[in-house]
């Protein structure tokens, strides 16, 4: 293995690794724009220059592979490469490159959404000049719309071509291209072919400056006001890692977070904009359907009492059926499975059917799962006695039915409609109105997805922790708590959980494949279940 030295730090690295990666990993800051770990290397921005001993000119670290030097050419008799990132020559080079990049840059940071997380701001501050010697007028070009979700401010673009390479290599859709030459170069789309692929929002994430902008987030707040919560996307079974950015208890945007175990660097647009769905009308209190088909708010205690009465009137605990939710975390599903097992020997619980499409795969390896449940695998894992389908529950009479609707992604049709019609009383646990809640007799509100806590298992068996980014409204309880209280009401036994992690711990103690999982080990990137890892 080659032995190299960067700024006096000795490192032993794999032959063929990229100098820039090695330096960054060793904690040495080498500024760079065009290089992105998920994309091919073009070496066009010239900012990542370093000095390599024995080479006459500065080298771009992103395009310099590290190899083994022949024995007689090793530096000091042992190093294959000796690199300096902070010599006068490098510093002068960085200053010049940054001055060039800023020639036509408008420096309109006050109105730029990138300000605060901008590569140009950060590097200019650290490595650049305070003054520009450019006296001419700056080139001014109009902002353009690239697609339904993304706009470009041409003036701010530094032509790193990350966005172009993204549409070539990751999505394979090739919407963006470099138009014109020299002074007239710009990023453009072909006539009538807007940037509208399902991953388009990522170009705004990877653009190192404020050129590519999400229209949805444009001018909503400033990045330094945002709280960043590292969580996972629950919109499909791919389970990408995300960062939820919020201010004033409102989600402002969702950005991708690198997780090589789940779709790498990017997220899809369904996940990115999903938070808007939950903004509209969250439930605030338990609601009972009244004869005039209106809804009446009732306190929690009364809601649970009502359920107990209906169970007694409707054939006792043995006739209670339940549908677990693929859109809720493992914790409420686990508790539901446990107490339903206590109520009857027969299989009385099935999985709520949600939309199933076919998977969408992209050339860059990104996969959007067709299973819109998100946690279908987790729900199956933590409920051992799951009936094969909703239809299987029809075999016996149904008294009270408990449906965990979660985020309202179930389709009201076929077996589900029949089962709800056959039930004497239906209790739906949901965060917002859906077709299922419309047909319910009693609705128990739970927190919306970004206020939820618990574990999610994606279709590959990767378990991730959902970190709540928001506080739920006052009278809304956590999903696991509502289900645990329901169980307490029906079985007459007190539940012993005081927070979501308690339930997680119980799951890891009793569920096959989850034994090695702990909240601590899950960390920010999650952990595979034993069956998935093996």
């Amino acid at each position, binding site marked *: 293995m080659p032995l190299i030295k960067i700024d006096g730090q000795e490192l032993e690295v794999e032959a063929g690794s990229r100098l820039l990666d090695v330096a960054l990993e060793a904690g040495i800051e080498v500024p760079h724009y065009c290089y992105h770990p998920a994309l091919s290397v073009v070496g066009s921005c010239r900012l990542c220059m370093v000095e390599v001993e024995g080479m006459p000119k500065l080298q771009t670290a992103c395009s310099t592979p590290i190899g083994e030097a022949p024995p007689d050419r090793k530096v000091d008799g042992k190093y294959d490469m000796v690199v300096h990132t902070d010599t006068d020559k490098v510093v002068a080079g960085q200053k010049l490159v940054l001055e060039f990049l800023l020639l036509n840059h408008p420096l309109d*940071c*006050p*109105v730029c959404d990138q*300000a605060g997380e901008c590569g140009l701001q950060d590097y200019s501050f650290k490595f650049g000049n305070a003054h520009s010697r450019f006296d001419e007028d700056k080139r001014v070009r109009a*902002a353009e719309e690239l697609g339904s979700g993304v706009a470009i401010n041409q003036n701010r673009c530094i032509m790193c071509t990350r966005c172009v390479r993204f549409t070539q290599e990751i999505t394979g859709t090739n919407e963006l291209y470099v138009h014109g030459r020299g002074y007239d170069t710009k990023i453009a789309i072909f006539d009538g072919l807007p940037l509208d692929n399902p991953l388009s929002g990522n170009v705004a994430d990877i653009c190192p400056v404020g050129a590519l902008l999400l229209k949805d987030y*444009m*001018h*909503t*707040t*400033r990045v*330094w*006001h945002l709280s960043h919560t590292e969580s996972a996307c629950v919109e499909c079974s791919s389970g990408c890692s995300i960062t939820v950015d919020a201010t004033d208890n409102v989600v402002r945007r969702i950005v991708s977070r690198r997780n090589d175990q789940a779709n790498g660097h990017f997220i899809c647009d369904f996940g990115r904009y999903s938070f808007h769905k939950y903004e509209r009308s969250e439930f605030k209190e338990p609601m009972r359907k009244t004869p005039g088909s209106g809804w009446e708010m009732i306190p929690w205690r009364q809601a649970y009492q009502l359920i107990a009465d209906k169970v007694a009137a409707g054939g006792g605990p043995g006739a209670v059926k339940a549908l677990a939710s693929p859109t809720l975390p493992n914790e409420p599903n686990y508790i539901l499975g446990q107490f339903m097992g206590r109520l009857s020997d027969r299989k009385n619980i099935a999985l709520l059917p949600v939309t199933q499409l076919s998977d969408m795969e992209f050339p860059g390896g990104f996969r959007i799962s067709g299973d819109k449940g998100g946690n279908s695998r987790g729900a199956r894992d933590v409920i051992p006695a799951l009936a094969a389908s909703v239809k299987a529950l029809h075999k016996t009479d149904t008294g009270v039915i408990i449906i965990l609707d979660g985020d309202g992604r179930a389709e009201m049709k076929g077996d589900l409609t029949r089962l709800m019609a056959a039930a004497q009383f239906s209790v739906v646990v949901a965060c917002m109105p859906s077709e299922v809640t419309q047909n319910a007799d009693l609705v128990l509100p739970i927190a919306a997805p970004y206020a939820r806590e618990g574990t999610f298992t994606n279709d590959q068996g990767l378990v991730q922790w959902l970190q709540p980014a928001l506080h739920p409204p006052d009278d809304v309880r956590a999903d696991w708590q509502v289900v645990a209280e329901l169980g307490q009401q029906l079985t007459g036994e007190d539940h012993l959980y005081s927070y979501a992690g308690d339930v997680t711990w119980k799951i890891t103690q009793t569920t096959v494949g989850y034994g090695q999982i702990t909240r601590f080990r899950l960390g920010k990137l999650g952990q595979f279940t034993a069956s998935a890892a093996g």
Partner: protein
Amino acid sequence: MATVVRTYEPGYWDKFYLPAIARGLLLTLVRMFRRKDTIPYPDIKYVPADGYRGLHRLNKDEDGRIKCVACEMCQTACPAHCIDIVPEPAPWDDGGEERHPAKFEIDLLKCIFCGFCELACPKDAIELTEIYDYASFSRDDLIIDREGLLKVYDITSMGNIYERQNRGESIQIDTGNL
């Protein structure tokens, strides 16, 4: 270390008190013929020195558009956390900046008039004016909004408001819901 405390011991003449009274009356007499230091406020308004930090205003540009681009720098710099801004995209066709505040509120009861907001502003959009007399009967009225701040610009942009009031112009200052 011991501290020596000197106490005032009146002397023989001091105990008559008359010389002190005479000195006092003399001062009064002299003052009667000098220019007065007090002013009959509010009939005549005190004119603060240049650079006085009073009520804020939001400046307008030459075409009358709001100069503020809602960059929230002032809000970030404000040590009293009394500025509340909600940005929105500006109308495309007015030729101005692309962003402006939908809401811009300053809680004047929290403000400590440090002037940091003015220093932080990259657009010279917010300024502290000479205005000091904006009392009100309710707390709500002392939360000045975007329109109110622009109105302050209107009344202060033609010169020092108190000098003009003293010249007999009638200018109303009202922070409430304008």
